[in-house]
């Protein structure tokens, strides 16, 4: 019976995918000097350009989770469905207060997923980290909203067009961005992410990496007009993001835990998103939003695959999971393509987004261009490390194991297809570099 509840999600999926075509054109036409175009469906709900992308990403990811979590209990499916509704609401709401409410509410089902279906006792600490970081650093945003009348801001994103002004510009900018900086996460505020990813189950990691991190990106996108109005430079935050992302990508190379490696790679990719969004350029913003969507699919698929490997071998260690190409060749087939997506192999949207961000950074800052280039290099390194260490080598298993059935192939192929074809094609249509 509960599978019927997923029908709205399934039927809305093609609508959202079609809507993203339309949204793409809106996205292209919008100016980046403080005005973001919204398509309002009601007084309180609507979508802007990135919102279309994220909503369709949301639907796709949760579809994948529903298919992948078929062996879990009903409570799991219900909680995942509730989370999908909350996150979808977060993308579609036009009111700032509503956005904050959904933003914080999404934390509860995520904590339940980690606590209820995690494997290890350390999940208690991980959920505490998640809760503390998110609530503490998003509290200033609530203060800014509640005192909006004092600073001249409105209660809808359309009203946030640089009306705010004040002596405490830097502090206000921090109030606006801190919660989303934790959610993305920016280097330095990212400590909760590796813990939460490692302790969460496969589906929990998929939704965390595929959707919840994008809440931070969407938050960045939607509050940037207000931050611009403050006249405050966000170079510090963007520099922290880009150089921290470089260090995190180097950390990825020396990881032994598969999920930790993918978690840190998420931090690295999202730091590129921050750099793109805070660059205040068309190309950078396009690249950032596209990177969010691309990373959502590739990272979600990687976490699902890591969960499959864990279910086969009982370990996430790269030292113990070797030679899987001869043990589960069917899954390693998808594992190869997912790692290619992670490293930004053409013709995927990951590649396109990296090119866009690289191009925008070359215009803005030479050193940042070097950092982005180095991050692109190290993303190749750790993706290759993740693939070669797991697939090559000698396996402890004597023969082939069961590859997981058709549902695994369906989910994995779905992730790869979305990332490579759909968004890549749409991006190719709307990209206008001239």
């Amino acid at each position, binding site marked *: 019976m509960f599978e019927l509840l997923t029908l709205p999600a399934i039927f809305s999926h093609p609508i959202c995918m079609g809507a993203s075509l339309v949204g793409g054109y809106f996205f292209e036409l919008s100016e980046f000097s403080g005005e973001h175009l919204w398509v309002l469906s009601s007084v309180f709900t609507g979508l802007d350009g990135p919102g279309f992308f994220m909503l369709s990403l949301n639907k796709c990811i949760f579809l994948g989770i529903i298919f992948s979590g078929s062996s879990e209990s009903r409570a799991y499916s219900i909680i995942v469905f509730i989370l999908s509704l909350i996150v979808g609401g977060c993308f579609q709401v036009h009111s700032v207060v509503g956005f904050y409410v959904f933003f914080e509410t999404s934390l509860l089902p995520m904590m339940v997923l980690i606590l209820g*279906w995690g494997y290890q*006792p350390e999940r208690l600490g991980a959920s505490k980290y998640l809760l503390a970081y998110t609530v503490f650093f998003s509290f200033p945003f609530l203060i800014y909203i509640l005192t909006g009348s004092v600073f001249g801001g409105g209660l809808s994103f359309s009203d946030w067009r640089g009306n705010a002004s004040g002596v405490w510009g830097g502090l206000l900018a921090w109030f606006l961005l801190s919660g989303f900086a934790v959610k993305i996460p920016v280097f330095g505020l990212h400590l909760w992410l590796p813990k939460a990813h490692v302790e969460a189950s496969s589906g929990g990691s998929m939704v965390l990496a595929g959707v919840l991190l994008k809440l931070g990106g969407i938050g960045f996108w939607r509050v940037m007009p207000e931050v611009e109005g403050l006249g405050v430079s966000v170079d510090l935050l963007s520099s922290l993001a880009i150089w921290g992302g470089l260090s995190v990508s180097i950390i990825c190379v020396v990881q032994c835990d598969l999920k930790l490696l993918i978690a840190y790679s998420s931090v690295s990719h999202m730091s590129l998103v921050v750099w793109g969004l805070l660059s205040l350029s068309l190309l950078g913003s396009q690249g950032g939003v596209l990177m969010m969507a691309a990373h959502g699919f590739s990272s979600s698929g990687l976490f699902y695959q890591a969960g499959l490997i864990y279910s086969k071998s*009982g370990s996430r*260690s790269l*030292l113990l999971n070797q*030679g899987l190409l001869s043990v589960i060749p069917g899954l390693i087939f998808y594992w190869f393509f997912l790692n290619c997506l992670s490293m930004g192999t053409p013709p995927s949207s990951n590649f396109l987004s990296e090119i866009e961000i690289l191009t925008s950074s070359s215009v803005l800052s030479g050193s940042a261009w070097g950092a982005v280039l180095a991050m692109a290099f190290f993303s190749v390194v750790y993706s290759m490390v993740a693939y070669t260490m797991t697939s090559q*080598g000698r396996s*402890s298993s004597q023969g082939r194991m069961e590859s997981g059935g058709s549902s695994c192939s369906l989910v994995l192929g779905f992730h790869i297809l979305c990332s490579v074809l759909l968004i890549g094609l749409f991006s190719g249509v709307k990209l206008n570099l001239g």
Partner: protein
Amino acid sequence: MLTKLGPCLSPMWARLLYSGKAGRVRSWHSSGRWLKQDEVVANGPANEATPPPSAVVKSHSSQVEKPFPERTLVEFAEEETSVPVMSLKEEEYRLKVKDSYLVDYKNNQGLVRYMFKKPFETSYLTNRPIQNNILRAVDQIKPQSMQKTTFFKEGINHHYEYRQCVTTTTGGTIRLQYSRQENIEMAQYGVDFFRQAGKLLYTHHAPHQPRVNFHPTGLLALADDSQAELLEQTHGVQISLGVRAELMSPAQLSKRFPYINTQGVAVASHGHECAGRVDPFALLSNLKMKCEDLGVTFVHGDVHNFVHEMLNDQKFVDEEGRSLKTGKAVTDRESEIERVHNRVTEAHIHLPDGDVWPLAAGRFILCGGHQNGHLGRLCGFGLGKEELVADLPVEPRKRYYFKLSAPQGPGLNCPLVVDNTGVFFRREGYGGVYYVSRPPGCLENEPSTQNLDVDMDYFHEWVLPPLVDRVPAFKDAKASGLNCQGYICILNLNCSFLPTILQVMDCYGTFEDVNFHDENPVIGPHPYHTNVLLGVGGSGMGIQLAPAIGRALCEYLTEHECKTLSLENFDFQRLLFHKPMFEAIHLS
């Protein structure tokens, strides 16, 4: 006691003696049990397997031993059995283990099971889950000054001082005089480890430099006429591998060790280097401290169950021999692969507070000493058909160690002396104190393993006579007082065949993990239980070989093969293919 010794002294039983034990070679039968020697000879056809070298028999009998009878090659019968697969063993298994512990955990996953569970604390398998959980919740909100609730489970004695552990109660003998190349190489690595233990086991937190008290006193092995040829052969192997040992004639022996009665001795092998004794408890405690320093977490408890996929209904077959999961015939290769690759997923540990903690892991290494056979059965070894019938042939065997005071004894010039009868003794300290022991010699003479009580009749009738015969100085051994530590010690002060009343300073019993297949360790992964590694069956050589076995297991974990030493011959397959790896020179 004499009646027990009678059969061993009889020539008829002499053919069953092998390296000091009764015919320990056993064969697998498709019915899933170890056959005794007579059954093997009676049932199977002659095989092509080469018989083992003639035994170094340490018994009273000086007769020439008959060649070891040919053993059968195991043929896994393909006969159709009317009994469903795994039903008998599974039933026996379930009778031994309470059904409450065999819950299907897959159906219990989710919120209720894992909600807010702290490590080392909660589980749903307690006898009083609700009450205990309430008490635990109350404990968490109690202030530090108030006493916490303590949970006890009746019947569980948690001796975490390692009193019954093989490691701490063994003699700690170190030697290089083995007959197998693999054993010699492993022993050489072990000696290197013990020599550098102060450096390898150093931690910043330790108050002093770690010491394992390695005393290289040397080893002297005596052989009579029937054993001389074998001793010379093994000596050649040892010399080729760099062992510093020399063969001595009785005259040379008498000159170097005047206290030894050389009557009946044909040749002796004296190991100068890397033979002696190490303090096993010091080794254990320093090793544990180093492991904790490196980040290892030790969980104190008793392993009382494993969860493995063999308990999963999907592994069973129906009456027609088809897998319940795939519907294919069991003989089909695809379903065989699926059935064969069993995986242990959890270990359930009984904690001191009476709770049971399910510990999930990707790899399990069995090194539980004399309880390895039991642990293997818990892992699912032996639950299956054909190749899966074999379980670990490791069982506890009780051995006695006796401490004598002999001021007129051998003195400082006393290596570890191993007599041709099997009795061996070594010097303890510098005060004329000696430890002596002797293996039972035959299966029927094996002491009961119900407890660790020491039987002094065993000493007076089995150990003392050959000891006094070989070293007459022990005849006047006296005791400094009744200071028996350990367990119940029965003193027999009326030994009619001894002119002197003898008292023993100290005595204790210990369990030894004996691989009764070939009395050599089993090292490496299990071929079918793919995530279980074995380091079992030390058979009296555990301390000596432990560093090498540990390194081999690490290499199996990370590189899936043994790189530094070629220990493939010690793997589990030799038990299935009936290729025993016998060690000619045994001390126990």
